[in-house]
């Protein structure tokens, strides 16, 4: 604890720095990474340059009883951001973070490039750079297993596959528990440094300042999120009608149980040899994933993109539903270390392009008529991982690939990648024109999409509240009508954002969108998100805005700061946490501005203003521009350029950032 490990792969030098050079001001996690990148990664350094940093940052909570303290952040200049590479964050779950803390380190900064493949081996208060020549080229599972053989099965591992080795912009880093640093392309950054893996084994402790208080707040959190499971079904709560407070409460837990089909039937059949068992990240009150295994499938975790990567297979062979092919495709992606979330945009986009006759089977070398088959996905993933043929283009990420093809192909990609401008590159959640629910325009979402430096809705809290309200009125996330869910959302949004009117994103006349609360909601949303990514806590639970089980459905936004105070002994009121979140949000914006971002990059493609949603409403350009101006004003940024001003930066205690911007003659630096 209290130490940051610095590894220079060019020189082979390992040193230790003090966490307290950055903390408590920058808190940990995302804030810590942002400050380090401000100090050390100027615009001229590219994501794949040896001088880029890749930062693995925990927060003050990791390695303790604190709920969801298994998570940590991977940070640095991201290859996936495009066309201009810039700072981005990637959250990872599982069990790696606590192990790093128990080994004595709060964060790892890796810079330089090793002369040949290496891996980092960290044990109690010690780190070594070891030869990885024999690991290079292995898939992520094989590499992990080798590392377990070398260092014992209690070693936690982060590893890249062939995609990372080949510097794919959409290469991810897998943890041994199946979690991933998916977005950002940090697997490619590791590959560019010849860093195959990081392995850690720690036996120390993290000393909690107020152990009893931590138990009390943990108990409070468990009352909201945890229930004893039924003996006969590990995914169902004994307490009938209790809904697990994740994703609005309508989806239960245990990912594979969500999608019916061949694989689920096999898992539910006792003598089949296939099984789905509960799985959870470190210190989680819910345990939302499952572990799946079977005689002829790759074992692994069922969760999110790692289950849903290839749902095309369910269209190709509908009678099989979620099949062994669906599963194996997702796992093949894991073995290569390719960002499944990007694939979930690239695959349908390829299908769209094929249907519009913009690409052919001949020039892509892919059996596009058989999209959804094993043959298709096997060829596609191999090509991407090895950067072969069309794979070399797709390895640039869907939005960059589409821009390269241009014309109609690029237009088709806009269905998945809403943000235009120079700092895009990320398939957004629940987009498909309108966002939540599919087909309905929500002003807050549009503003979130344009302002972020990656996919905004990775911070699930807002959308989970919308989903929760949908389930409450007996509808689902895809079909719920805004007018029906707004009454349910009123007390929820009042508690979360300060006013019942924040829930009325459609005006009572039903004809127009209400943009009045877009900026204030998004400002608070960013503050929540920044703090959550610094403590570090899990997006799926925190901030807790919607209670699926109570009559008024109101959440509790005080939980995170109370957990923080119990672990560190430092008082942090929710108000103080919002001020700190505001400061960190401005720091992140300064990083993007330094790389060249302006208000012109905070924009959606034309198609988002052209289409009407299912209620006959549209996003209007002038409304979005007004909301942006409102947001910049609230944040103390220059309204013309969207850049933090000198006075604001100084007021927030970021004088060096103000000076840095001013030196570059950047807008907002002076005034």
């Amino acid at each position, binding site marked *: 604890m209290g130490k940051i490990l610095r590894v220079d792969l060019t020189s082979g030098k390992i040193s230790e720095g003090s966490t307290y050079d950055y903390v408590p001001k920058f808190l940990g996690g995302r804030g810590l990474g942002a400050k380090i990148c401000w100090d050390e990664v100027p615009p001229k350094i590219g994501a794949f340059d040896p001088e880029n940093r890749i930062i693995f940052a925990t927060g003050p909570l990791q390695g303790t009883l604190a709920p969801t303290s298994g998570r940590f952040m991977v940070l640095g200049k991201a290859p996936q951001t495009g066309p201009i590479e810039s700072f981005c964050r990637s959250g990872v779950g599982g069990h790696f973070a606590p192990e790093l803390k128990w080994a004595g380190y709060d964060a790892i900064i890796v810079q330089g490039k090793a002369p040949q493949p290496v891996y980092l081996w960290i044990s109690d208060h010690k780190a070594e750079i070891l030869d990885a020549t024999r690991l290079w080229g292995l898939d992520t599972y094989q590499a992990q297993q080798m590392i377990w053989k070398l260092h014992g099965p209690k070693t936690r591992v982060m590893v890249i596959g062939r995609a990372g080795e080949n510097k794919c912009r959409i290469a991810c880093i897998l943890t041994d528990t199946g979690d991933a640093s998916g977005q950002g392309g940090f697997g490619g950054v590791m590959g560019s440094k010849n860093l195959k893996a990081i392995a850690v084994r720690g036996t*120390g402790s993290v000393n909690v300042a107020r152990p009893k208080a931590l138990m009390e707040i*943990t108990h409070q959190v468990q009352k909201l999120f945890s229930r004893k499971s039924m003996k006969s079904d*590990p995914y169902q709560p004994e307490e009938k009608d209790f809904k697990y407070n994740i994703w609005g409460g309508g989806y239960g837990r245990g990912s594979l149980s969500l999608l019916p089909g061949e694989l689920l039937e096999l898992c539910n059949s006792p003598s089949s040899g296939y099984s789905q*068992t509960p799985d959870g*990240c470190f*210190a989680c009150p819910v*345990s939302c994933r499952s572990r799946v295994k079977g005689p002829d499938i790759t074992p692994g975790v069922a969760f999110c993109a790692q289950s849903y990567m290839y749902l095309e297979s369910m269209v190709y062979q509908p009678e099989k539903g979620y099949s062994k092919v669906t599963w194996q495709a997702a796992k093949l992606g894991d073995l290569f270390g390719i960002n499944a979330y990007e694939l979930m945009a690239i695959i349908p986009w390829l299908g769209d392009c094929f249907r519009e006759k913009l690409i052919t089977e001949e020039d892509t070398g892919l059996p596009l008529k058989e999209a959804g088959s094993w043959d298709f996905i096997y060829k596609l993933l191999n090509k991407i991982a090895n950067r072969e043929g069309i794979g070399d283009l797709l390895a640039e990420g869907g939005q960059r690939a589409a821009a390269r093809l241009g014309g109609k192909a690029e237009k088709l990609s806009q269905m998945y990648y809403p943000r235009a401008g120079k700092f895009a590159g990320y398939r957004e959640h629940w987009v498909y024109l309108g966002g939540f629910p599919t087909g309905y325009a929500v002003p807050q979402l549009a503003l979130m999409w344009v302002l972020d430096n990656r996919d905004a809705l990775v911070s699930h809290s807002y959308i989970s509240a919308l989903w929760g309200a949908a389930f409450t009125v007996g509808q689902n996330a895809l079909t719920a009508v805004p007018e029906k869910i707004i009454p349910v959302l009123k007390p929820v949004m009042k508690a979360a954002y300060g006013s019942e009117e924040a829930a009325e994103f459609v005006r009572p006349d039903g004809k127009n969108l209400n943009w009045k609360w877009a900026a204030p909601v998004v400002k608070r949303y960013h503050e929540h998100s920044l703090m959550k990514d610094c403590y570090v806590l899990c997006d799926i639970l925190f901030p807790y805005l919607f209670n699926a089980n109570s009559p008024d459905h109101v959440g509790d936004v005080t939980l995170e700061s109370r957990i923080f105070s119990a672990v560190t002994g430092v008082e942090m009121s929710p108000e103080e946490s919002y001020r700190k979140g505001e400061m960190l949000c401005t720091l992140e914006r300064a990083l993007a501005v330094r790389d060249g971002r302006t208000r012109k990059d905070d924009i959606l493609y034309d198609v988002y203003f052209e289409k009407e949603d299912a209620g006959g409403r549209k996003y209007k350009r002038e409304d979005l521009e007004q909301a942006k101006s409102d947001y910049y004003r609230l944040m103390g940024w220059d309204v013309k350029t969207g850049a933090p001003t000198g006075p604001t930066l100084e007021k927030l205690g970021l004088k060096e950032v103000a000076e840095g911007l001013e030196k570059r003659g950047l807008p907002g630096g002076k005034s």
Partner: protein
Amino acid sequence: MPTEVGRRTVLKGITLGAFSLGSVVAIGDLLEVFTFPNGQKVALARGVILVDKFLCSGCRVCEMVCANFNSGGRNSPSLSRILLEKEYMRGDYQPKVCHQCADPPCLQACPVTALQVDRQRGTYARVIDERVCIGCQKCVEACERHFRPARPRFDVLKHRSVKCHLCFGEPQCVKYCPLGVLRVERSEKGLLVGYPVIQED
């Protein structure tokens, strides 16, 4: 009358224990006890934690709450009196608890009578008196002959061993397991569990 007899027997037992390797305390006729072939008696534990591994998701909250509660806020699996063994790829997770053995190898092995049966709290759990423990780890070695990993843990910082004491009667791991994997089985007559009823787990 029975109380008088009990008290005398207890004092005799403690005295005997002080002079022999491995202390055994005779409680008398009031409770069921486990009787060794040589006639020595150990009171059976009145509580034991049972595990339903089918429900376990491997989250390690049990380990964290144990260390947090029992080791003064030092959150570490190395200090946890419950050990979660995990085979990640197959999702095979097994919390391993102290079985509060009927014939406790740890109690037999302790050279200084630090290992006692907790009558005071009424659990009759096999507990380590931290004021007496010299940190020789013979309890760890003894347990390890039957149960791997050994349930007593060595606290490097304090240079003494620690083990599950059922949290004075309200095991925190049981309370805080988010999924209900753990439960406490209680019996006033004492539970015939652990070694030698089971030889390994």
